[in-house]
């Protein structure tokens, strides 16, 4: 269980996250909102990567007080991309994590098809392959809370589906999975909950079903949309700028 209580993050004068209070349980929560809404900042606050005011608790533990030895068990942040020192291999990059579980890593290397990439230099791989490596690295911690930032932007549809199915399976085995993404298709289909942000504030938290009964999607993005649900698949079609 992840509890945020009045969480505020400031970058200098700018308030990126403004008093967010929410309780998120197990399952996949899709964090959405327009660019600059505070999605990444929320994930970084939850992961203790940025300084926050208020309280972020995972299973009752305050994130900012977690010791390095314990932190990996509680939370893992997966960035969409990195600008690493170029002379590293994908394998080196994955193994830079201090809290990796090797059995889990093996599993994600299989699922995300990274085996043949381990010895490749970073400049020899595509941005999608790099994103998959970062995902394997982040998931291999086996943390309670998995905070995944824009995982879908670079990777192809096959790996998008594999990843989302895996994240859903993790959510069903008790993990709190947070996905920040604007790729509503296919992310919504594989999510259990939606946390909508705008201007650093949480404007909605609830199940996907409840979310689709509101018109928050249109109002936060300022776009008229049509939502098609069929065979358990959810498709959001933008129609026009409102």
């Amino acid at each position, binding site marked *: 269980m992840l509890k945020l209580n009045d969480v505020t993050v400031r970058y200098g004068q700018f308030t990126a996250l403004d008093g967010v209070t929410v309780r998120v349980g197990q399952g996949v929560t899709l964090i959405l909102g327009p660019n600059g809404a505070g999605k990444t900042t929320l994930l970084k606050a939850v992961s203790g990567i940025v300084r926050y005011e208020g309280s972020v608790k995972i299973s009752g533990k305050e994130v900012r007080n977690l010791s390095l030895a314990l932190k990996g068990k509680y939370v893992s942040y997966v*960035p969409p991309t990195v600008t690493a020192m170029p002379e*590293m291999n994908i394998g080196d990059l994955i193994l830079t994590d201090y809290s990796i579980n090797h059995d889990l890593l093996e599993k994600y290397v299989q699922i995300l098809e990274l085996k043949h990439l381990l*010895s490749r230099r970073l400049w020899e791989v595509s941005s999608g392959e790099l994103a998959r490596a970062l995902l394997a690295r982040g998931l291999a911690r086996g943390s309670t809370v998995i905070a995944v930032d824009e995982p879908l932007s670079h990777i192809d549809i096959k790996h998008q589906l594999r990843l989302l199915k895996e994240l859903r399976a993790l959510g069903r085995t008790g993990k709190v999975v947070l996905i920040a993404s604007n790729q509503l298709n296919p992310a919504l289909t594989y999510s259990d909950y939606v946390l909508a942000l705008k201007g650093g504030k949480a404007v909605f938290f609830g199940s996907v079903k409840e979310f689709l009964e509101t018109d928050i999607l249109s109002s936060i993005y300022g776009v008229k949309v049509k939502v098609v649900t069929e065979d358990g698949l959810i498709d959001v079609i933008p129609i026009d700028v409102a």
Partner: protein
Amino acid sequence: MGSAVEQYIKLRRRRFYAVTVLIALSLIAVFMLHLALGVEIRNPIDVLVKGFSDIVSSSSSIERYRVQRALAGVAVGAALAVSGYLIQIASRNPLGDPYLLGISSGALFAVVISFTLPISAALMSVARPVAALIGGIGAYALTLYIAGRAGMTPTTLVLSGVAVGTFFYSISILPQYLFIQNLQMVFAWSQGSLVAASVWEVAAVASAVIIGTIYALMNFSVLNALTVSDDFVRDMGKDPSSLRRTITFLSALLASLTVAWFGIIGFVGLASPHLARRLLKSGESLYVLPIALMGGSLLVLGADSIAKYLFLPMDLPVNIIASLIGAPALATILVGMRKRA
């Protein structure tokens, strides 16, 4: 199920062991060669035994001089390599090098200025490294400032460093001509020379290498994180900016100490970590550091062997030979970087 990651880890480790053996044996061979070479070619074991006993009994001899010069090469090469390794990680830039980034020339300038001051010889032995450190850090601060204003990229950082370095190098020539009597000796020093190495200077550089290496090995997981992303450093509860400041300071300290006593030897800091990553086919900090360190000693000793023997009885500045090796290394890295664009 074949475990791919385990295989990769084993492969990486095996390659590390193989490269360690290769570099260590080459280093021993070049060390012996360096001891053997001179006006008279001698059995290096004899030189080593006699030289060490003369160091212990503090009597002077040709053997002692040869051993000190060889040890200086090992220490200076290692210091430059560790310096380059640290600054490459701090700037996340494969072109990082204390010479290319202006540190060495800044240190040189400050030491030359300290020569013109009316201070006693005893005070001078302290003033020299202190001046070098101040000059080195000052010059690097200027490089960072210019690169920051030019929009920090690996290339603008190096270009700013070259601008700053050239400036300090040039203005350090002037006082050499105007104010300093012992011109030839100072000039030889500024061009990189292991000739006048004293035991305690070598020991000072070696201690700095040991401190820098221990620091890096104790913090290798944070350094690894820093080679990938600042967020990964923050994830470990460390502040990437203060980590950068610490390792940049260590890098400048190592480079400045070598400049204080042995002058400018360029490109070793650039080439050694690069050579290590090439041979290891990996960027793992824990493996790159020891290989780069030995590689730096190997490069400097190799260059100095050529410098002292090829044009006998003339003793060339080691920097000339080091640059002959280092400049092509820079060219190779630059061409390699194009692939990433």
